[in-house]
């Protein structure tokens, strides 16, 4: 049997990984792993993961790693970077951690243009806790806590993360939204976000649109269609801000 090539920076004893079949996390983490390999930063990277499904990545890489929770990954990475500026710090979190319970941290790290990289996975729900509403749940989308569909009159409209991060950051920040349906582009964005930290330009943020068939209760076709037809329509993919040359739309 021929196994697919795995990034050198992956920690193989924990593979195959523990994400659900059809989950997009594995794709995002593969893109991140390849980006780490290509930039040659494995031995100076500290990878921090949040709570929720993103926590399942805590022993994913053969890099120094630290577990945190509830969006605190951002200030933890800030603490590491401020104490040891020579390290490359990558915070990995979900939409709940970044946009809801830890939003103060994302917002203020963006304002301070902290020289860290944050990768946030948007799958429109709280996966680990069983599929409740997330800040990114689409209007009308059914979740365990919006059983009749999300009503923006009651819970507002979905958070558009890269848009607000782009608005808050100053020069030097890198902000993009990719999707697991466009792997090469997503990997390019993640690599840019790391390159931007290596160059010490400013805050680097990538939101990755991702899939959650388990909680969406969708088959393969429906899963992909929700990602490409619903999510990508609501959450435009592209670079919002880049000091690395012309932004990509």
């Amino acid at each position, binding site marked *: 049997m021929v196994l697919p090539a795995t990034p050198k920076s992956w*920690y193989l004893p924990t593979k195959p990984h523990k994400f659900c079949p059809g989950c997009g996390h594995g794709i995002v983490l593969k893109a991140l792993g390849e980006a780490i390999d290509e930039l040659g930063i*494995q*031995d*100076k*990277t*500290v990878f*921090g993961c949040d709570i929720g499904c993103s*926590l399942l990545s*805590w*022993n994913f*890489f*053969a*890099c*120094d*790693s*630290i*577990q*945190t*929770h*509830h969006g*605190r990954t951002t*200030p*933890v*990475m*800030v*603490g*590491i*970077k*401020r*104490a*040891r500026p*020579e*390290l*490359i710090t990558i915070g990995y979190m979900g939409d709940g951690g970044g946009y809801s319970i830890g939003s*103060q*941290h994302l*917002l*203020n790290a963006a304002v301070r243009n902290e020289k860290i990289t944050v990768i946030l996975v948007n799958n429109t729900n709280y996966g680990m806790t069983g599929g409740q509403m997330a800040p990114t749940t689409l209007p009308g989308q059914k979740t365990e806590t919006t059983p009749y569909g999300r009503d923006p009159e009651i819970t507002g409209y979905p958070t558009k993360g890269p848009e607000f991060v782009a608005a808050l950051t100053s020069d030097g920040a890198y902000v993009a939204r990719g999707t697991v349906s466009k792997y090469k582009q997503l990997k390019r964005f993640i690599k840019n976000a790391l390159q931007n930290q290596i160059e010490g330009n400013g805050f680097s943020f990538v939101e990755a649109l991702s899939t959650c068939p388990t909680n969406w209760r969708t088959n393969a076709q429906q899963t992909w269609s929700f990602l490409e037809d619903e999510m990508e329509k609501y959450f435009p993919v592209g670079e919002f801000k880049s000091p690395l040359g012309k932004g990509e739309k």
Partner: protein
Amino acid sequence: MEKVLMKGNEALAEGAIRAGCRAYFGYPITPSSEIAEYMARKYPKIGGVFLQAESELAAINMVYGAASTGARVMTASSGPGISLKQEGISFIAEAELPCVIVNISRGGPGLGGIQPAQSDYFQATRGGGHGDYHTMVLAPASVQDMMDFAMEGFELADKYRIPVMIMAEGTLGQMMEPIILRDPVTPGYEKPWATTGCKGRKPNVITTLHLPPEELEQRNRYLKSKYDLIKAREKRAETFMTEDAKLVLVAFGLMSRVAKRAVMEVRKRGIKAGLIRPITLWPFPDEHIVEAAENGAKLFLSLEINMGQMVEDIKLALNGRSRVEFYGRIGIIPNPEEIVGVVMQIAEREGL
């Protein structure tokens, strides 16, 4: 040796710098803010990192991050801010990251007031956040202690890989006293566990997740064994005239200074009183209490600036061996005369 006049909060901050602490993350709150302000003034000149965080939550998590790299790091706050930090302290305790957390305490609950209090005793000595854990807690009683305990705090934190809390009443942070400046130390602890990039070694992982029940229990047993070791080695207290005392006052922090004056006064009046001043609030110096009881102390009087918290630890230490009473104020530190009055009343009643 030459003495300098310093404010408690500044002496503590200077002590941290002399201990090699080069990272400080905090959020302003009265009466602790001078610690942050001192670091903000000093660090740019000596290559330290000062960052005013967006919140107490952010500050403690920045401490978590910086401590994970092996750096000596500190944060300070007061009552309500310390409550906000508890989530992070639980993680730091479980991840076994050394750091110093300062509570320049005020009275609660809620916003309470900014007057001196020891109301956070339970919070400080029982872990404070979720899960089975302890932080070490040091209680200074003078501005000199503020400097010395800051330095000692970092040593203990590194030695046991534990967050160390320094808890001082707001008054102690605000008042000035002449102190001897201690010589700076070079931190001498190897930290092979730190997340500093895995060049030339296996990757380090800092984890607080233990899903398999056996692993979780094993982890908690391990932490308990560490806490037992600290209990065996690090209980500290100052005793004053306890050898022949029939009545022993127990007081920590500033209150211990008032109590000491009261003991000297009632001794003049023929009352055999003594004082035990816990220096470590956790581990609580229960053996000092028991020893005083064995020496003939009939009654212990817990003096606190709260409504009665440490009194429970004294009772636990004595386990019924001697009687324990309590006298407390809050927001107001009683003067020695007030304590003398309380002691004389008890002495008369008990025929001491």
